[in-house]
């Protein structure tokens, strides 16, 4: 089994022999990798390779799908996320996830951002928390004057930044981004990428992306998944310039999709 490549940072998330099945089909097979704290890690690979499934393992989202079963372990700061005493609701508060589809709730901008903190019983300065989250997601200057605007009236790019802000308002330790720019135009994509870069020292970020160049631009480490298996994982620069596996190379050079 290929081991996580050279980084001396302490891992915040560690998957060991992680496998996921949906009914009879295997989505993820024996994946082991460690996500170092404070870094950006990209998961790339052809569509259907298990990127999203792997990401969803980290926030225990797969178990919401009927017929899904997970084996192996995921440790988060030393705790087994799938342990018997672990509440998945609590896991999702610590490990936030943003989805491919923009999913603003049919509420105001403010209520969208305040949704997570309210659900977890936040009793502090909600106004300040909302402002901070929107600022971190690069949306504050655009919505500051009208936080009561229905979130559905925002542009596609703004909606996705709203979704990022909504997750940031929970102050998670890890931010999981599932194809965060796949539905956006190049300008909105560039915007999101610069936000991700700005967040990176403070948050550990894991991005699933079909866009290998986005991985190259953004991430410190890159994992290449193919048909549910982790084929290669290492420093982004090394993986892109000198891939160890032939299949990684053919994917990166565009010979396979």
């Amino acid at each position, binding site marked *: 089994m290929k081991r996580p490549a050279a980084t001396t940072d302490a891992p915040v998330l560690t998957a060991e022999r992680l496998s996921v099945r949906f009914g009879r089909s295997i989505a993820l097979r024996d994946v082991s990798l460690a996500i170092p704290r404070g870094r950006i890690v990209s998961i790339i690979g052809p569509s259907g390779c298990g990127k999203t499934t792997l990401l969803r393992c980290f*926030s225990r*989202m797969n178990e*919401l799908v009927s017929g899904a079963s997970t084996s192996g372990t995921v440790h988060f700061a030393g705790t087994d996320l799938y342990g018997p005493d672990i509440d998945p*609701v*609590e896991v*999702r*508060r610590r490990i*936030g*996830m943003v*989805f491919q*589809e*923009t*999913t*603003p*709730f*049919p*509420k105001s901008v403010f209520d969208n951002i305040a*949704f*997570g903190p309210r*659900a*977890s019983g936040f009793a502090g300065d909600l106004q300040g928390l909302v402002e901070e989250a929107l600022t971190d997601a690069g949306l504050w200057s655009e919505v500051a004057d009208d936080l009561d605007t229905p979130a*559905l009236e925002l542009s596609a790019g703004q*909606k996705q930044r709203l*979704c990022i802000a*909504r*997750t940031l308002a*929970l102050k998670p330790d890890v931010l999981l981004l599932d194809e965060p720019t796949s539905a956006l135009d190049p300008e909105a994509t560039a915007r999101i990428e610069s936000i991700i870069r700005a967040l990176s020292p403070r948050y550990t970020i894991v991005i699933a992306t079909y866009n290998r160049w986005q991985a190259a631009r953004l991430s410190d480490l890159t994992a290449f998944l193919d048909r549910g298996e982790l084929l290669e994982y290492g420093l982004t620069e090394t993986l892109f310039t000198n891939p160890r596996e032939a299949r990684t190379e053919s994917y990166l050079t565009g010979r396979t999709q």
Partner: protein
Amino acid sequence: MMPQGVAGAGTASRAAGERLVAHVLLACTVIAVVTLAAVLAVLVREAGLFLADVSPWRFLTEITWAPAAEEARFGVLPLVVGTVQIAVGAAVFALPVGVMTAVYLHQYASRRATRLLSGVTALMSSVPTVVYGLFALHFVTPVLQVLWPGVEAFNALSACMVVGLMILPTVTVLSREALDSVPAPLLNAGLALGAPKGRVVARILLPAASGGILAAVLIAMARAVGETMIVTLAAGNESRLTWSPFEGLQTLTAFLTQLGTGDAATGTREFQAFFAVGAVLFVGTYGIHMAGRMLVSRSVGRRGQ
């Protein structure tokens, strides 16, 4: 060998056959349209004759219906109030139960429970309303009379409860459709923000489906307004203006059944009055139904991303 002429004849006869099918289908459509037009024409003509005689204002605002009195009175208001009472009362019973059943089926029920409940819902829809009416009269009312001795033999409460039961499948099925139309990623996003399922249901699922649920209730209320048998059997058929749920009442539809008794001679003002009441009923149910439809299309538009 197949001579060319045969193929040609086949094509011609097939074309003739298709024309015939098209004509038969058109004839069926015409029957429906002509029938609807005839119904409306009769309704408008008779109601028009009536309203030429009795002022629309008096018809809509007077509180007594006494066509045989020396000074005949044709106040439709008690019937409208009775009808509204039944429709709103039925909705009060059917809304919470129907919506909660729909949420259960959508979010919590196992496949087996869903199958079972779908069967029960289908069965409930196929019970004849006269059976519901007898149930109201011989079971619900006696129980109510034990609980509240002041309840009359014919009362609005029993009618409301059982009409509510009758429209329950409509509310459940249409609410379920409204819930189904909420995009799953929206709910996943709520759960991914660390909200417990109950909170996601209450704060995201139900608000996002609220337009569709309201429409479901309106469409079910339109059915309640049109319901005759249960109301006649459970609430009696006496026209009086009352808001008390313990007393009997008369609705527009229950009143209209009296036309069948043949007491009103054709062409008399009393006879025409039935059609005026029918027109009020038609406008009411059509209005509620259209409002429901409008809400459905608006809520779909609002959710579009």
